[in-house]
Every structure is written in structure tokens, then in C-alpha cells.
């Protein structure tokens, strides 16, 4: 005889009772879970009782008539949870084309979920076209620009055990956030021990940088220090750092923002660069500096014993604090030239 077969969803912690199809309560049956016989202690007559189910009890449950071993009932038990409030985010990284919304659940439900999103602008319902990949994202084309009317986005997640929803309300400008600048490159400037040339490109997702120009924020620091220096640039996609510490490796990042609206992008991928240095002379003492240094000062490189200045002396400004050790070296040069 054919057996009933279906999927059964139950909450974690629930007590589950399975009937063996149309078999009487007092019929002799055998239950299996994933092909393994279930102990009689879980039976109440022909009913299978599972108390306080957990995720490990998901699987295929089958009921066989006692003597004939005919399959009388089969179900796939899926243990899971109803959805928690989903996390929803909307952003425009391609202004003025449109924006996208993406979502996820803060914790898994372990059973299939379906998502429904609605976007309302004033009285108009807008279509959010779902992306093929990733699946938890859809995008909306702006039909209007410069509107004071807010957008209201509601995401509802539903599964067999329940539903939940969340709503975001925002205006057109607030969600504009470009992607980080791309192709950031930093390189030393020949014969300039304190300069680094940095160049980058507009994010490729920004559709019209000529009409909607971006401004940039550059941050840089030597690897050996924690404090960043910042430069804001209102135009152009390059900048020359002129106050780098000679011979020190730098880490550099760039962020972008529309000139007039929205928020800053995330920081770009970090690039590393070291300013140009002359061929190292392997000096170890100030005395060797006074013996071997040439008359030229354009390629001054502090000797290895030069100590890095205290952080507090250089925080937030382009000026370099003069350390006592560097002062000694300068004095030594002065003596040499005299």
C-alpha cells in the first residue's frame, strides 16, 4: 500500500507526536529514523512521541506495519525555529541610478525561508528587482531625484514556523555611499626621501563621476606608528604626500564620498610604499657619519641609530619634531661643512 509522505516542520523544543498513517493506536508497528529502528520507549501505542526535539532529530521517519513490514507512513521531520527580525540595509553606491537593499537573518532557522520586500515612495509602490546572486539582495531604480519624500522599505521573512519583518525609512540622500576607490597605487618619488605619490580611480560602480563628482579622504601612517594622518581632497584622483618619514614603510588608504550628499565609503584596500632612499651606507655611529658623508644634503638619510620621534610630537601636523639624536647628526654635518 502506498504510504503518506510529506515534510513536517517543528520548532526546537517542541513535543512531536507522529501517527502511523491510518493505523489504529493499538496496531503493532515499527518506527525508524533514517533507517534505524526507534526504541519502543518512544512509542505510545503506535504513535511515535518525540519530546523536546532538537536539530539532530531532523530526518526521515518511517512507520512499518508490524508483521508485514509494509511501509505505512513516512515523513521528513525538519526541526527549526521561526525567523527572528531580519537585518535590512539599503544603500546607493551608484547614485543617481538607484539603490539596493540587502538582508540577512541574525541567526539561522535551519528550515527554508522566503523573503518578500516592498518599497514605497509616497503613494507609489516601486519594484525591487531581485538579484540572481546574491539571493538576498534586490535593486530599485530611482524614478525621481531630489525628492523630499522618504522611501519606506519593508522586508518580511516567512517560514513554516512563523514570520517576522522589519522596516527602514530613509530619504534619497542619506543612503548614498560610494564603493571604495579602486586601483590605489603608491610609489616613491625619485630623489625625494620624504615624498610618496598616491593615485587611485573612482569606483567603477559610480556611474557618472563627471556629473556627480566624488571627493576623497586619504589616510596614511608609517607601519611603526598607530596614528594616521588625513588629507581631504576635493578633486583629482592623486595626491603627493610630502611629509613622509624617510626610509619608513607606509600604509595608505583612500575613501570616497559624493561631493554634496551621503556618507563616506569604506576604506580602500591598503597599499604599502616606502619613500625613495639613497643607497644605504650601513652607518652605525655618528662618528662614521662625520667621516663619510658627502657635501650634498639633498639625500640625507638618518643613520640607523636615529630614534623615531615621540608620537605626541607629530600627531596631527605635518611638522616633524626634532629629536635630540637627529639634532646631534645635524650638528655633526655643520661641523663637517665648517
Amino acid at each position, binding site marked *: 500500500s502506498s504510504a503518506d509522505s510529506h515534510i513536517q516542520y517543528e520548532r526546537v523544543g517542541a513535543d512531536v507526536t507522529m501517527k502511523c498513517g491510518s493505523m489504529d493506536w493499538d496496531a503493532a508497528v515499527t518506527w525508524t529514523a533514517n533507517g534505524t529502528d526507534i526504541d519502543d520507549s518512544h512509542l505510545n501505542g503506535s504513535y511515535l512521541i518525540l519530546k523536546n526535539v532538537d536539530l539532530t532529530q531532523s530526518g526521515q521517519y518511517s512507520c512499518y506495519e508490524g508483521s508485514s513490514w509494509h511501509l505505512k507512513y513516512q515523513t521528513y521531520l525538519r526541526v527549526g525555529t521561526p525567523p527572528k527580525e531580519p537585518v535590512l540595509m539599503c544603500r546607493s553606491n*551608484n*547614485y*543617481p*541610478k538607484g539603490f539596493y537593499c540587502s538582508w540577512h537573518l541574525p541567526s539561522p532557522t535551519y528550515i527554508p525561508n522566503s523573503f518578500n520586500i516592498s518599497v514605497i515612495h509616497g503613494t507609489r509602490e516601486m519594484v525591487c528587482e531581485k538579484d540572481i546572486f546574491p539571493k538576498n539582495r534586490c535593486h530599485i*531604480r*530611482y*524614478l*525621481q*531625484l*531630489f*525628492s*523630499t*519624500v*522618504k522611501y519606506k522599505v519593508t522586508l518580511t521573512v516567512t517560514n513554516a514556523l512563523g514570520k517576522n519583518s522589519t522596516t527602514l525609512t530613509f530619504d534619497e*540622500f542619506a543612503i548614498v555611499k560610494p564603493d571604495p576607490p579602486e586601483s590605489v597605487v603608491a610609489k616613491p618619488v625619485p630623489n625625494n626621501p620624504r615624498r610618496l605619490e598616491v593615485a587611485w580611480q573612482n569606483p567603477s560602480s559610480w*556611474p*557618472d563621476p*563627471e*556629473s*556627480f*563628482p566624488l571627493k576623497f579622504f586619504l589616510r596614511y601612517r608609517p607601519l611603526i606608528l598607530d596614528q594616521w594622518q588625513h588629507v581631504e581632497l576635493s578633486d583629482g584622483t592623486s595626491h603627493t604626500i610630502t611629509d613622509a618619514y624617510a626610509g619608513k614603510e607606509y600604509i595608505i588608504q583612500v575613501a570616497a564620498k559624493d*561631493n*554634496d*550628499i551621503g556618507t563616506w565609503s569604506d576604506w580602500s584596500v591598503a597599499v604599502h610604499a616606502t619613500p625613495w632612499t639613497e643607497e644605504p651606507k650601513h652607518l652605525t655611529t655618528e662618528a662614521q657619519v662625520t667621516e663619510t658623508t658627502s657635501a650634498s644634503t639633498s639625500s640625507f638619510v638618518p643613520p640607523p641609530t636615529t630614534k623615531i620621534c615621540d608620537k605626541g610630537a607629530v600627531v596631527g601636523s605635518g611638522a616633524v619634531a626634532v629629536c635630540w639624536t637627529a639634532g646631534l647628526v645635524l650638528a655633526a654635518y655643520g661641523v663637517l661643512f665648517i
Partner: protein
Amino acid sequence: MAAADAPSATLRRRDLCNRGIRLARKMRSDIADLLDIYVERQGLDASASVAAVEGVPVAATECWSEQTGTQRLLDNLAAYRSFRVLLAQMLEEQREQLGDADTTLGRALAAVLLQVSAFTYHLEELLQLESCGPPSEEGAGPPALPRLSLFEQKLRGLGVLRELAQWAVRSVRDLRQLAKPGPGSGSAPGMAES
């Protein structure tokens, strides 16, 4: 006379556009400050929704990228002429309500009104350069409104300032389009393609 295409006219237009962009940006910044003061002084909720108010030029547009330079200028000019009248009304209402009790709001309103007037003049100059000249102001102002209650006046004022803030951003974009080399149509990609 193709004045708009002559090199000196192009340079003049670009110069006017760039100055206009700076004006609009400053205006936007001051409008943001004015909005904060207004909301606080009028006891309003900053997030309150205000329905579209009759007579207030709406910055929202569905065909921004398709507009020609002249259309942009005309739309801007019409809007700011209306805002000039609306802000003057607000200033008058504020003086009636509060007299000299609140000079902070009055000063902020007056400052923005001055900038709106200056920007209006700037737009008229740009239109002169486009050889079409600004339209006359006869009948260009917002319609006369029935007397509003005090609360309605406050909400209306909030709507006016919010829309003015949007226009300030739109004006920056419009002027940037106009400043582009070429005939100044400045259509940009980005809106839904038809």
C-alpha cells in the same frame, strides 16, 4: 548671435556656474542650520512628515537627466523667485508671532533670504548669457494662500525650508551640468532609460 558658443561666453558661463555652485553650497549649509533653528524655535519634530504644500516649488523631478541647460536655469529661476516670496512671508509671520523676542530665527531667515535673492540674480545673469534672458516676474510668485492657523504656518514653513534644501542640492547639480563643455545640455546617464 551665437553668444553662448563663443569662447569668451563659454568661459564666462563656466565662471558663473562655478560661482553659482559655491553660492548654492553655502546656501545649503545655511539652510541646514536654519532648519535646525526653525524646528527648535517652532517646537516641531524634526522628523515630522509634511505633505506637499501648495505654492512651494518641488525639487523632485523624473526627467532631470534629460533637461537642457536652459530648462535647468528656467526651473531654478522660477523656484528661487518663489522661495524669495515664501521666505519673506515666513519672516513677516515670524515677526508677527514673536516680534523681537526671537532674533536668532529672524536673523537666520533673513540671511537665507538674502542668499536666495543673490542666487536668483545669479541665475538671471546666466540666463542672459544663454541669450534668452530671464522671464519677467509678473505672476511668477506663489499663489495667495488662505489665512493659516499658527500650527499650519509652522508646518508650511518646515515644508518650505525642506524643499529649499533639496533645491540647493539640485542647483549644484544643474550648474555642474551647465558648466560642462559643449552646448550645455548636460544630459547625464543614470535615470531609468526609456
